[in-house]
């Protein structure tokens, strides 16, 4: 074998060596990556088993420049809630009130006829009541 041939052979081997070195390095990086991923997965599994939240702040919160919902929205929501609460309170008050309020209730509860119901009004003066008789007597002696 001549020297030229030896040199060509060595050059060719050198290229093969470089390829092998790159391949080795790539395999090593892959191996390390896989190992890191595997370790992360193992840690994740261990945290899940112990119910430990594994969270990471991806992006810190920023206060928005404008409100999410306008004031009108909250006004309508508040009005709706107040109306619902008022109606509920009214019905609850009616339901739990144990007093007699209407002639029908009195009739149903006591099972006797309701002869009259009298509106709440200022007490009339006795003189005014008695005057009716006296006036009647004047008209019909």
């Amino acid at each position, binding site marked *: 074998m001549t020297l030229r041939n030896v040199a060509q052979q060595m050059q060719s081997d050198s290229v093969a060596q470089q390829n092998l070195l790159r391949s080795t390095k790539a395999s090593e990086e892959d191996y390390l990556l896989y190992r890191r991923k595997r370790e992360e997965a193992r840690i994740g599994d261990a945290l899940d088993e112990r119910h430990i939240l594994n969270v990471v702040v991806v992006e810190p919160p920023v206060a928005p420049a404008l409100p999410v919902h306008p004031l009108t929205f909250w006004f309508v929501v508040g009005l709706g809630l107040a109306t619902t609460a008022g109606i509920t309170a009214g019905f609850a008050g009616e339901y739990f009130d*144990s007093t007699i309020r209407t002639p029908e209730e009195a009739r149903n509860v006591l099972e006797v*006829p309701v002869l009259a119901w*009298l509106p709440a009004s200022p*007490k009339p003066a006795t*003189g005014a009541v008695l005057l009716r008789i006296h006036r*009647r007597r004047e008209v*019909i002696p």
Partner: protein
Amino acid sequence: MNTLAGLLNEPPVAIESPELDAVREPSDATASPADWVHEEQIQGLVQQLFFQGESRVRHVGFTGVEAGADTAQLCLNVATTLAEGGAYDVGLIDAGLQSVPLHSQLEIEPDGDVDGALALGPRLWLVPRSNWLGGSTTQRIWDPSLSRLRAATMEFDHSVVAFDSLSWVTARISQICDGLVLVLTANKTRRLAAVQVREQLKRARVPVLGVVLAERHFPVPERLYRSL
């Protein structure tokens, strides 16, 4: 003290009621809807109570279920409405024992003997409790007192007996009447209390002729009602 038998034969004691001269009956234009309803209901009550049905009722007692129920004014209105017709002698009888005397509640000032019957109007008298109570006390009612009270009711064509709120004493005295009318206060008298009173009267064999629901409130204000 006058005996009851001779009481009504005596000339009635004149009364002085300051309102009688001073107060004028409200005209229809100024009377409120509540006044109209009130008068209409009283007339209906008198009609149903005294003039309907086969067995005519002559002597009726009024008692409140709630302590402090104002039966005095109701009794006066019923007696007045009965007497307005001019066809019957009507007695308004004070049978309350615990409360203020009826004539004081009605702000009627008798001129002279308070034991005598007070003439409130033509064919309408008020019999104070002192007239029939005699030796009885507010805790113990003797039979002679009951007899006098019964005789007092019988002196009239119709008598309206004003009782205190219901108690065992009231239940006993009310035996002299043809029946009782229970006065309920709207939004105040509880259903359970009313039922218990009804049962007590049933056990005491006191007929309940009906109920009156007083002090009823309406959700529509009067000013708005007038504009409708």
